[in-house]
């Protein structure tokens, strides 16, 4: 499961951020909750993903201290939303074809 997930981390992170701005720790928690604990990534690998998505203008970030702790909050940009829609469609198409192939064997 981990190997399959590592190739789709960008998509998964964009999908988690679709519901609103989050900091890194909350993204990990949301991911774990939504997958019933199956998507248990090495937490440190999330931040390079967030930074490169930001470099690609798919997410934006800002410092926030409202919780009493200084945290970097990430949110989806318009470009990120478009990328999420495109990648989700791509993934669904791939998964559908894979299912057809596996089902036939």
């Amino acid at each position, binding site marked *: 499961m981990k190997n399959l997930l590592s190739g789709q981390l960008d998509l998964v992170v964009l999908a988690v951020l679709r519901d609103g701005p989050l*900091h890194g720790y909350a993204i990990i928690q949301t991911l774990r909750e939504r997958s019933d604990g199956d998507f248990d990534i090495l937490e*440190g690998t999330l931040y390079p993903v967030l930074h490169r*998505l930001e470099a690609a203008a798919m997410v934006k970030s800002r410092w926030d201290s409202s919780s009493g702790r200084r945290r*970097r909050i990430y949110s989806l940009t318009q470009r990120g939303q478009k*990328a999420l829609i495109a990648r989700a469609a791509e993934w669904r198409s791939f998964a559908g074809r894979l299912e057809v192939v596996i089902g036939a064997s």
Partner: protein
Amino acid sequence: MTEGAISVYLAELEAQLKLNGVACSRVLAETEDHLAATAEELAASGSTRTEAEAEAVRRFGRATTVARAFAEAAAGSAARSAASWALASFLAYVAAAATVALAAPSYLLDFPQGLPSWFGLQIAVVALAICLVRWLRWRREPLIPAESSAPLAAGALVATATLVVSAAAEVLLAATRPAGGWQAGEAEAVVFIGGALVVAAATVVAIAAAARSRLVGALPRERGRRDPRATLIADITALSTVLGRVATRVLAYPRLTAFVVAATACIAVTVTQALAHDFAHHASVVIGAAVVGTLEGVAVAVCYLAFGRALGLRSAGSSLTPAR
């Protein structure tokens, strides 16, 4: 700074980030916050502070792995940026060279003035075309794998370094003209030097990107992390299956292809040079054209040998046998 396992981890991560040339203040701040939040949650659920910190660090992953991921992302961004700078500098150089060629008095443009630019621009066009293929292939991906960011940065470096050498040679030729006379083309010279400075800036960006990619490439790799798709053929195939098939055939025999291109360039330049003169039937014109054509063919062959590997046109020890 938090005490215990977390502070030890942060120190190790900082060292690894610095080793990989990654700006680390923001990364460390985010990591510290993340580890502290995890440790607090674990402590609240019954773990001791020591256990909680150790578990938070374990969940975060090895410092070397995290630092490598940041370095790879930074190398990809740097390579993309270098390619954009290389293209901009090429356009600036073309504009500057064209301004000189069109506006400067003709007696300032006598042979060999302009020759370095003629060769430099050709090499830059080939390097940038290869860069463009790679840039197009990865344009929608946030991450360029290390295996692909290295040749992208190398292509940008070949293009910009060639142009900077050309510019320097042109300036040297202009400065050492026995008859002088550049006072008559002062404005054009200023425009040319402006273009050359843009090229110099792009070269610095390309050197930094190439160094960063080389650094990432030299890092220890996790098992199964090598990307086999980082060849020019794979890049072309990813853009177009038809072009990919053509590229596979053309690049299968790199030396033979280079020889054919060199021979074609030699003939084309010889014929063009000869026909450009009113006295094309005259032996001296034909010989002069053949000399320029031969020079062009030799330049193609030399460039293939000098830059072919950096541009991904040939692999180490490539020969007349198919490239693999």
